[in-house]
């Protein structure tokens, strides 16, 4: 029972991170119908920027941890957003209106480029970060197994929930969100009611990158080590989460993320750690075979 509870906590934490990344996939797919395979790399860059920011703010003498965290969070968001915007501008926008495969291939190229760029610029060795947020709660201390809920896990889940609520409001209530939904349904018509379609798409990439940056920071804080290759696996898993939840659906991405996190945690906990990635990708295969629209996705027959 205690062990189960611990895996549940770990799974939800992991799932929140996958969910944050998955939103970037699902929003981009919703609006331009392409899978942004470079999104995992954007997340990886978010993690690197976080580490660099920690060091820079450390040198500047900001040692009060909440303040340092806020500063790092903001810098990671801003710089990663700039990467997201640039990727769209140079790798996808020139190919808009081209055949369907073109931006997809360009995305794979962008993904390889970003990986190698970070490897060259930052080195291939893993980058450690000393634990910033330590401590936590412990339950059932008398029993055979002590359940730990660390502060960083609480931060991850709370921050994710806040961002999810914020982004849902943004999509539902604001003019920008309405413009995004309009572009998703009929880009030509959106332009004819005065929506700047190119800017709306750019902002979608920026929003995805901001969430990926938060995920990058949280992972850095959670695990304490990153390298230039973390974007690949996290990206594919978040993509799985987006497909499982129903690609194009925002709540679906979050639900898919949590489910993938739980599957991974329980599989590692009760079966084998070595095969946890296999478990996740079996889910991807099964979803694509039996329910390609995902859990919350709508069948989309008329998509152009």
């Amino acid at each position: 029972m205690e062990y189960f509870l611990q895996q549940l906590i770990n799974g939800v934490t992991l799932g929140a991170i996958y969910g944050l990344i998955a939103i970037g996939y699902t929003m981009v797919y919703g609006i331009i119908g392409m899978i942004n395979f470079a999104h995992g790399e954007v997340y990886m860059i978010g993690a690197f920027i976080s580490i660099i920011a920690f060091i820079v703010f450390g040198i500047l003498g900001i040692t009060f941890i909440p303040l340092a965290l806020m500063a790092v969070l903001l810098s990671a968001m801003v710089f990663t957003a700039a990467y997201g915007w640039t990727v769209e501008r140079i790798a996808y926008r020139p190919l808009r209106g081209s055949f369907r495969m073109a931006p997809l291939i360009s995305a794979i190229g962008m993904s390889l480029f970003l990986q190698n760029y970070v490897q060259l610029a930052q080195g291939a060795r893993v980058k450690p970060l000393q634990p910033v947020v330590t401590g936590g709660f412990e339950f059932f201390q008398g029993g055979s197994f002590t359940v730990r809920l660390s502060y960083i896990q609480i931060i991850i889940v709370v921050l994710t929930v806040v961002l999810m609520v914020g982004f849902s409001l943004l999509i539902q209530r604001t003019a920008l969100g309405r413009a995004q939904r309009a572009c998703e349904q009929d880009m030509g018509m959106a332009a004819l009611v005065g929506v700047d379609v190119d800017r709306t798409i750019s902002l979608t990439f920026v929003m995805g990158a901001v969430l990926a940056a938060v995920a990058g920071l949280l992972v850095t804080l959670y695990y304490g080590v990153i390298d230039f290759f973390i974007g690949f696996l996290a990206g594919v898993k978040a993509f799985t989460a987006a497909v499982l939840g129903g690609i194009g659906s925002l709540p679906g991405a979050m639900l898919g993320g949590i489910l993938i996190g739980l599957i991974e945690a329980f599989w590692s906990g009760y079966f084998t750690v070595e095969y946890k990635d296999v478990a996740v990708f079996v889910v991807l295969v099964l979803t694509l075979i039996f329910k390609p629209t995902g859990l919350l996705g709508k069948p989309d027959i008329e998509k152009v």
Partner: protein
Amino acid sequence: MTRSPLLAVEHLTMRFGGLVAVDDVSFTAYDREITAIIGPNGAGKTTVFNCLTGFYPTPVGRLRLTGGRGEFLLERMDGFRIAQKAGVARTFQNIRLFPRMTVLENLIVAQHNVLMRASGYTAAGLLGLRRYRVAEHEALELARSWLDRLGLTAQSDWEAGNLPYGSQRRLEIARAMCTKPVLLCLDEPAAGLNPRESAELRGLLTETRDQHGIGILLIEHDMSVVMGISDHIIVLDYGSMIADGTPSEVRSDPAVIRAYLGEEETEQLPPEVAGDLHQEGRI
């Protein structure tokens, strides 16, 4: 009353490969008037609209719009700026609402630019600042007034794709009007409407012209609509303009009659055939 020109189309030509869809067409549409563009199928009417609303990157010719917002050369503008800055709105032959948005939202999204500016490009909107709430309230008021006028208030929360066909057509016009245009381009608004709906549409269009003081360009096959409400008619055939005038002038124009009904049969029969037919009493 003096007529003030709103849109001057000068030597508009649009080619697709070897096909000349619109060939050197020039006409003027006036403010506070309904200008109909008619012609047989494939005459290039919709192509003219597509050139006006920036669907094609490089039409040849000049499209000069002189509305209340200043002078614009539409052929040099991007699609969305034509709607945003110049104030040209349009509807489609095959309806293009946002089908999975509610009826009300379709009208709000048309006021995107006003709201975007008021929300300080989203930041103020997220924080729910007063300035944005006021702008949003005004946008809702405008949208609701259109729904009242079209009798769609009860359906305002429906997904637009679930509305009956005739209501979708009227909603599309209302959405175009919510962008606060100076020129409204309607592509076959009466297609598929029954006679009662078509009469309602005529009322809606003349009211719109008179109350909002805008110019309307109208492509239409339903002659009861065209002849009933147009101030001015342009006739296209095979991409060229063959007539330009008031409804009564166009109606009696021989070139127009020829384009619609074809040449009168004046073939001479050989005498023996004519004689045979005469004997059999067929002639």
